[in-house]
Structures are given as structure tokens and as C-alpha cells.
């Protein structure tokens, strides 16, 4: 029933995607009960992937004026 931290962190991504079996879920829960590191890993990596899609909203780069001119010319 015991799994290693390497296995637990791998399983945590599968679990997040809903692709773990009943047994795997039990193993994971048991592992989390004794391993703070893996519990944090699951929470933190989920946090990163959930926020990643907001990236563009917090970026203020702009398409260069030169490229805009080129595109406009190509669209004529």
C-alpha cells in the first residue's frame, strides 16, 4: 500500500485529471496522511496550473508598430 514520493507526485497529476483508480486514490490519501511535502506539492502545483491561464491578462506587452504596419499591408 505504501508508495514513494515520486509515485505520489506523479499520481497527483493523474488525480487532478480524474484519471486515477479507486485503489490509487486510497494509496494517495494514505501517503498524504504521512507526507506533508507531497500534500503541499499537490496543492501548489494545482494552484499554478489553475492560474496559468490568466497570464495574458497580467501582461502589457504590445505588438510592435512595425509588425502592425506589415500585417495591414498584407491585408490589402
Amino acid at each position, binding site marked *: 500500500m505504501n508508495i514513494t514520493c515520486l509515485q505520489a507526485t506523479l499520481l497527483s497529476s493523474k488525480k487532478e485529471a480524474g484519471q486515477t483508480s479507486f485503489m490509487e486514490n486510497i494509496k494517495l490519501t494514505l501517503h498524504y496522511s504521512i507526507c506533508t511535502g507531497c500534500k503541499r506539492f499537490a496543492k501548489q502545483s494545482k494552484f499554478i496550473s489553475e492560474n496559468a491561464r490568466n497570464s495574458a491578462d*497580467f501582461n502589457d506587452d504590445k505588438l510592435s508598430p512595425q509588425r502592425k504596419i506589415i*500585417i495591414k499591408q498584407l*491585408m490589402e
Partner: protein
Amino acid sequence: MQQNSGFVPEKWVDNYGDELYRYALVRVKDNGFAEDIVQETFLSAWKSRETYNGTSSEKNWLYAICKNKIIDHFRKQSSSSSIIVGKDEEMYFDNNEHWQSKNSPKDWNINYDKKVESKEFYLVLENCKKKLKDIQQQVFVLKYMEDLHTVEICETLKITQANYWVLIHRCKLHLRSCIQKNWLNL
């Protein structure tokens, strides 16, 4: 062509150029690629403007084209058989596959349920993503930013499902550790 006031190809570059550029920029590794993707998006849209039927807004239609251009870009970049090399995991785990004490995740002391509004977080995330290997970064973008299904990601990048999980695992190990160090300074 739709004579619809919400569909004005002449204004696309001014109206959506910057936001589509940002959309592409945070998904690919350099700004030259992002500019090319935006250009291809507008040109494809321009060429097929007659087929726009108004079922989605002009903006969503352009975003959908841009999304496909990004997927195409990754498809072209992936070699015919992307081999998964290296043992990145060894950076974090010991011989017994347990966390090395210095690399065990630390307490972040944040509210995990709250959307991050700090610009600094996203800047750090971008820099951390750039440090990933191309194939890892592509898997991350297709899965977590584009919401593609596993099968579709494997087909696009020409990888097996087993490799897919290895890559997702490595992305998460690297990103989590890089963000802990550079965003939280822990």
C-alpha cells in the same frame, strides 16, 4: 460577406493586435514566434472572411484561429518522435524516491483558492516556463492553458500517453520549485 457592424476586418489589427499578441506571447517561447502567430492569424482570418457566419463574435472567432495557429506551431516544432531524455526527477528525490530534504515543498502560507492578481507572479511564471525544455513547456501550455484532451496533446506533440504523464510530472516539479524560489523567495 456579413455586413455586420461587429465584423470589421479593416480594424482588426488596431482592435485585437495587442491582445492576440499577448495571448500568443505567454504561450510560446519568444516574441518573434508570437508576432508570426498573430500575423498568420490575421492573414488566415482575412482570407476566410467570407466564411464568417456570425455564430461566434468576431473576437472569439479570431481567438479560435489564433489558438489553432499556436497548436500548429507546436506541431511543427515537435520532431517526428520526441524522445524523452534525462532524469529530471533526480533533482528532487533521493535514491529511495523520497523528497531530498532541501527540495521538499515548503509552506507557502497563501490562500490557494484565490485567483492570483499579482503581476509579479505571472512574470515569475513566464520566466520559469521559459526554463522548461520545449516539449515540457508545450505540454504545459496545451494542457493547462488550452485545455486540450490528453489524446489530442499526444497526437499534436507525437508522444505516447506514458511520456505525457512523465512530462506533466516534470513540468510541475520544475515550475513549483522555480516559483517557490523566485516568487516567494523560500
